[in-house]
């Protein structure tokens, strides 16, 4: 799920950036440093939407660099265990399939795909029900439930399931 949160960060700035553009320089550097990163605690930082305030700078001993505490608002994406969300299938193999929900990768193992769906190999590998009415392949949209997350300092990886009520394919590009 996406969240709008306020975070704080100390920005170290070289003295050559000082002057009347100081604020712009701090904000530009903040965006470059922070957007697109992933922290285990907050999730993926998608976009900075605003600056709350920039505190007083503190000169670092010895270097001349100045650090400014910056409070900023941003949109983050963080998956939760038990959350139900929609994702796009990116790869299918006999172990299961990978899906992407925004920046997050989710793996659904073949044990967590309903038993009546069989793996079919070929140039477009897919999982199909015995009567062929439902098909999961690349670019299908599926609704899945996250049952586990692995959170590193710089990466979030999820395990999902579609073996539950109201989960599974919601839109099949081949059928449309």
């Amino acid at each position, binding site marked *: *799920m*996406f*969240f*709008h*949160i*306020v975070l704080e960060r100390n920005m170290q700035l070289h003295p050559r950036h000082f002057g009347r553009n100081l604020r712009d320089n701090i904000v530009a550097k903040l965006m470059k440093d922070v*957007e*697109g*990163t*992933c922290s285990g*605690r*907050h999730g*993926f*930082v*998608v*976009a900075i*939407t605003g600056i709350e305030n920039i505190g007083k700078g503190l000169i670092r001993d010895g270097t001349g660099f100045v650090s400014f505490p910056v409070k900023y608002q941003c*949109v983050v*994406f*963080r998956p*939760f265990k*038990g*959350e*139900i*969300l*929609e994702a*796009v299938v990116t790869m299918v193999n006999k172990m299961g399939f990978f899906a*992407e*929900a*925004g*920046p997050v990768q989710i793996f659904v193992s073949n044990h967590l795909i309903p038993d009546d769906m069989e793996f079919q190999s070929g140039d477009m590998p897919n999982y199909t029900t015995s009567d062929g009415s439902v098909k999961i392949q690349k670019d299908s*949209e599926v*609704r899945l439930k996250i049952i586990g997350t692995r959170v590193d300092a710089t990466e979030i990886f999820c395990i999902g399931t579609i073996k*539950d*009520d*109201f989960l599974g394919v919601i839109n099949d590009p081949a059928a449309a």
Partner: protein
Amino acid sequence: MSGEEEENAAELKIGDVALILEHKYEQLQQMSEDPLNQVSQVFEKSLQYVKRFSRYKNPDAVRQVREILSRYQLAEFELCVLGNLCPETVEEAIAMVPSIKTKGRAHDDEAIEKMLNDLSLIKKFE
């Protein structure tokens, strides 16, 4: 679910995020010729994702959804999931958000059904 660790967090529906990201993307477009080069991969993927799964395209509808759902004493998290997934039946809604049925809250099937009806109306008249 998120309350314990993120005190100042506000949950966003996919529709809200789509508005925010598209606005930001437009700003970047004005600043440089080739905005795709400026944005991170995370931003690009998120933008594609929210565009693909946003149920309500126009900003007014996104606002209305929040307004209607907020009448039903839902937690922010529940409100968000319902707004994102737009379940059509009562059973589906309960399967998506089991907590709307528990905690001894005054949500019987009728109340939930009314809520889902209100939601589908917005979509119809969008």
